Every structure is written in structure tokens, then in C-alpha cells.
């Protein structure tokens, strides 16, 4: 393993421990672990295992899922500005998740919520692939993504407004900006199989993404026709984004920032970038979540606010760089 990649994993481990140590209530982690070891009930143990652990695990998983999806989308669409939230994939997932959650369908089976979000993400990627064939420039595709984002965000608000649950509209911030706070272990278990399948599917397309660097035609002559990998990539992105959105809302810019920061370290090789984006995404979301817990204020900021504060200027920088 390359030292830089090893360093990235060490950073993730450090941030994960820092995330476990962060929280409104000051608890002694060692004492909480000792209570768990001796199987004795205590407040510290409950806080660590029922509040902080699911939050830290979700930050780890959601970050990896969103960043790897961003890297895969950029490779698939050969567009460095592509990411699940910039193109409306996350918001489409949120729309279907909101529909099944607030209209009672999620009670039908445990997998209905993530499956609905997955379908929303898959539909958006399919639509984007069709648009890629018709829109010549990278910027035009981003504009189409912005339109899709605006439409699905408006429909999500509309659905929340008309939901039978009178408190649904209050959760619009969660779905629009995303957060891993106040999640439970049940949500980790809900999303885990989808993250596993999605990440495995994306990693199986590493060589195809490398070949696609030379365009679809040449990739086909190198033994990697997109027709054989397209569905794997779509389902992989949909699983990861769908599961992430189902449990944490639409956390923005992770899928854009992480591949860009890491691309020079992997000499722009999309397959290798996919590997590196997994710990890279975890590190960014863990860092952002630690920061929101330490920022002064009466109420904790939504995680997505911080990633947007970092990501939006970064996106403008990328646009200007592309123009030049």
C-alpha cells in the first residue's frame, strides 16, 4: 500500500476516534468501554453505543459511499464536475425516500426506504446518461443537473408539505442538507447491505473506468465496452447514494470535493481514484461532523451546511479552472 493511502486510512481512524469522543455530553470513553466489557449498564455506555457509535459509523460509511459515487460518476460521464448532488442524483433519491417515509409505505418492509431512495438515484443516473448523449459540453450537463436538483428539491418540499404527518415539513432541512446526528444502529444496519453491494459493484468497474478515459469507442477496443458495465455502475451509484440519502439526507459536495482533491495523488487514474475516494470521503464527512459538533451556537448545524460552505466555493473554482 502506498504511504499516502496508508496515511489517509490513519487519518480516517484518528477522525473516527475523535468523532466518538465528540458530543454534547462529556463522557469518559474508557469508562464507557469498561462498562461494556463488564456488561454493566451506565449512561456513558448508552451514549457511546446508542448515540455516538451509529453517528460515527454513518459518517464513515456515508462519506465513503458519496465520494466513491462521485468518483464513479465523474469517470462514467467523463465529466470532472459530476457528483451525486450536483447532478440531482441525491435529491432524486431524497424525493422517493420522502414519499415512502411520510406516506407510510416504509412500514411495509425494512428495505422499502433504502430501495425507494435507490430507485430515485438510479432514475436520475439513467436520465443523465441519456442527456450526456445529447448535450455536447460538460457545462451543459451540469446545467441539466441543476435543473433536476431544483425540480426534485421542490417536489420533496411539496411531498413533505402534503404528507399526512403534521411534523413532516419540519424535517425538510434534514432531507435538503443532510445530517448523521440522532441516528440509531438500526439505520446503520439498514444501509450497510446497500453500501456493501454498491461499493463492490463500483470497484468491479475500476478497469472499465480507466479505459473510459480514452472515450467509449477506445474503451470497447481495449476490452471494456461500456455496454457491459453501464448497469453495474448505475446500480452501484444508486445503491450507495440511495442508502446514504435514506439514512442521512442529501449531504452535498462530498462526491465533488473528494475525487478532485485526490485525483493528482493517483495521477488521474479513475480506477485508483475509486479506491482512494472511499477513505477520502470518510475523512471529509467525519471531519465536517466533528466540526459541526464543536462550532459555537445554540443549535448544532446540519452537516450539509458545512460541506456546502466548503464545496460551493470549490465548485466555483473548478468552473473557473475549466473555463481557463
Amino acid at each position, binding site marked *: 500500500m502506498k504511504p499516502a493511502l496508508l496515511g489517509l486510512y490513519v487519518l480516517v481512524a484518528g477522525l473516527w476516534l475523535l468523532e466518538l469522543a465528540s458530543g454534547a455530553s462529556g463522557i469518559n470513553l474508557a469508562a464507557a468501554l469498561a462498562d461494556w466489557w463488564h456488561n454493566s449498564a451506565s449512561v456513558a455506555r448508552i451514549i457511546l453505543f446508542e448515540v455516538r457509535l451509529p453517528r460515527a459509523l454513518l459518517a464513515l460509511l456515508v462519506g465513503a459511499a458519496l465520494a466513491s459515487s462521485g468518483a464513479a460518476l465523474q469517470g462514467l460521464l467523463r465529466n470532472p464536475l459530476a457528483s451525486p448532488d450536483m447532478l440531482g442524483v441525491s435529491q432524486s433519491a431524497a424525493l422517493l425516500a420522502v414519499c415512502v417515509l411520510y406516506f407510510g409505505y416504509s412500514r411495509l418492509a425494512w428495505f422499502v426506504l433504502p430501495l425507494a431512495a435507490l430507485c430515485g438515484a438510479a432514475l436520475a443516473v439513467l436520465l443523465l446518461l441519456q442527456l450526456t448523449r445529447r448535450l455536447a459540453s460538460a457545462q451543459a450537463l451540469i446545467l441539466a443537473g441543476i435543473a433536476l436538483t431544483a425540480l426534485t428539491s421542490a417536489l420533496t418540499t411539496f411531498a413533505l408539505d402534503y404528507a399526512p404527518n403534521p411534523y413532516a415539513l419540519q424535517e425538510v432541512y434534514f432531507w435538503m442538507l443532510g445530517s448523521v446526528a440522532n441516528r440509531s444502529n438500526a439505520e446503520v444496519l439498514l444501509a450497510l447491505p446497500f453500501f456493501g453491494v454498491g461499493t463492490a459493484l463500483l470497484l468491479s468497474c475500476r478497469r472499465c473506468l480507466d479505459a473510459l478515459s480514452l472515450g467509449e*469507442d*477506445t474503451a*470497447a477496443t481495449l476490452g471494456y465496452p461500456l455496454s457491459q458495465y453501464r448497469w453495474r455502475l448505475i446500480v452501484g451509484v444508486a445503491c450507495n447514494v440511495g442508502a446514504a440519502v435514506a439514512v442521512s439526507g442529501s449531504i452535498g459536495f462530498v462526491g465533488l470535493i473528494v475525487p478532485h482533491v485526490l485525483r493528482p495523488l493517483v495521477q488521474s487514474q479513475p480506477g485508483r481514484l475509486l479506491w482512494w475516494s472511499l477513505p477520502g470521503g470518510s475523512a471529509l464527512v467525519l471531519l465536517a461532523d466533528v466540526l459541526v459538533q464543536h462550532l459555537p451556537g445554540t443549535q448544532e448545524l446540519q452537516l450539509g451546511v458545512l460541506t456546502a460552505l466548503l464545496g460551493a466555493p470549490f465548485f466555483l473554482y473548478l468552473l473557473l479552472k475549466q473555463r481557463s
Partner: protein
Amino acid sequence: MTPLLSAQDLSVHTADGQVLLKPVSLQVHSGEVVGIIGANGAGKSTLLKALAGIQPVPSGSIQLAGQEAPTLSSLQRAQILGYLEQRPQLHWPMQVQQVVALARLSFGDRELPDGIAAIAAALAATSMTAFSQRDFLQLSEGEKLLVNLARVLAGAPRLLLADEPTAALDPAHQHRVMQLLRQRAAAGMAVLVVLHDLTLAARYCDRLLLLHKGALLAEGTPAAVLSSANLQHAFHIDAVLDTASHAVMIRTSH
């Protein structure tokens, strides 16, 4: 001897029924350099893409190394056939060496000794070793084409399909590339190359296929195909092939 590439009654048309290629049959043997010539829009690139498996072929059949092409997996096909596109494109800033290494994807040995040796040999053959650490996107069009040729050669294909490999090159590099293709043919590779320069076609090709409006107008030795009558019919030029210098000399045009 079994041809390395064989195609029978290959035809291509668009979804709305426009005919791009009328039934064409051809064979290319190991050790041969076969040129495809014709005016713009004659169907040269369409034929090459159909043979490379990029362009869907509604009718006709293709055999690669004695096997029906559809029965080969994508990776098997990639190990037999190398395709050099007309306009090289790369979507990310990658080093030349990494671009060339993509040819070894189907072998899975980009970072293993065999793959590394093949990449180094291909860079040396195209005189691009000094460029190996350079950013591909910063190169001139001619240099990009040479890197792409190196990329195709690094895959050690038995059959090379090249779409206008000399189009962006100066005369010295045009001859360098054609000499390289001849050397590879002498080593056993089969080469099918689309050319616009009739003099290069006459000088370096063993046989020529002359396409006209999507159909095969003539096939044979350069002397037979580049007859004044064929040149008049296909290119609307009054020209003659000087067999001593392999130069096609245009007398008048209209």
C-alpha cells in the same frame, strides 16, 4: 493460410435506414499492410469501426484469427485486435506512460514485469520514451497520435486497425509511422490502415481497398487500384501513379 481478419458481406446503415456501407468482403493476412482509401464520406472509417466492433453491424460476418468475432469475449478480442482512432482523446490529465499502459488492461499486467516491458518497448518504437512522464494533454496533435500508436503497440495486437494514423503528422513523421507499421507487418502483424495520402498508400501498402460511396470499387495491388480510371471515378481527379516513385501525380482537377 487462414486470414487474421476476414469479413463477408459487411453492411452498415443508420437507424433511419441510410446506408453507410454496402456489402463489403475482405481478408487481411498476417504480414500484410492493407490500405483503405477513398474520398471523404466513402465509408472508410465506418468500415474500420465495424471491423473493430465499435460500429454495430446489422448484416454480414467477421472472423478474427479464424474465430467468429461474436463468439469472442471483449477481452479476447482486445488481445487480438488493436484500434488506433482518428482523433485521440483523453478526458483526464494523465502521464504518457499511463496512457500507453491502458493497452495492458486486458492482460491485467500494467504493473507487472511483462506489461512494463511491453510499455517501454512501445514507447521506444515510437520514439516517445523521452515523453513518458509528460502530461498527454499538453502534447501536440502529432505527439498525441504517436503516443496512441505506442498505446496500441503496447497491447501487442496481431491485427492493427489504424484510422488515418498520419493525418496530423509532418512528412518525416508520416514516413516514420508507415515504416513502423511495415516493420510490425514484417514481424507478423496484420495491418489495415485508412489513408488519405495516396502516395503513402502506394509506397507502403501491399494491397489497397478503394471505397466509393460506401461500396468497394476496387481491390488489389496499388498499381492496379490506383489506375487513372479509378482515381477519376472515386476522387474526380485526373491523376496517374508513377510506379517508380510511388507518387500519385495530379494533372488536373474539377
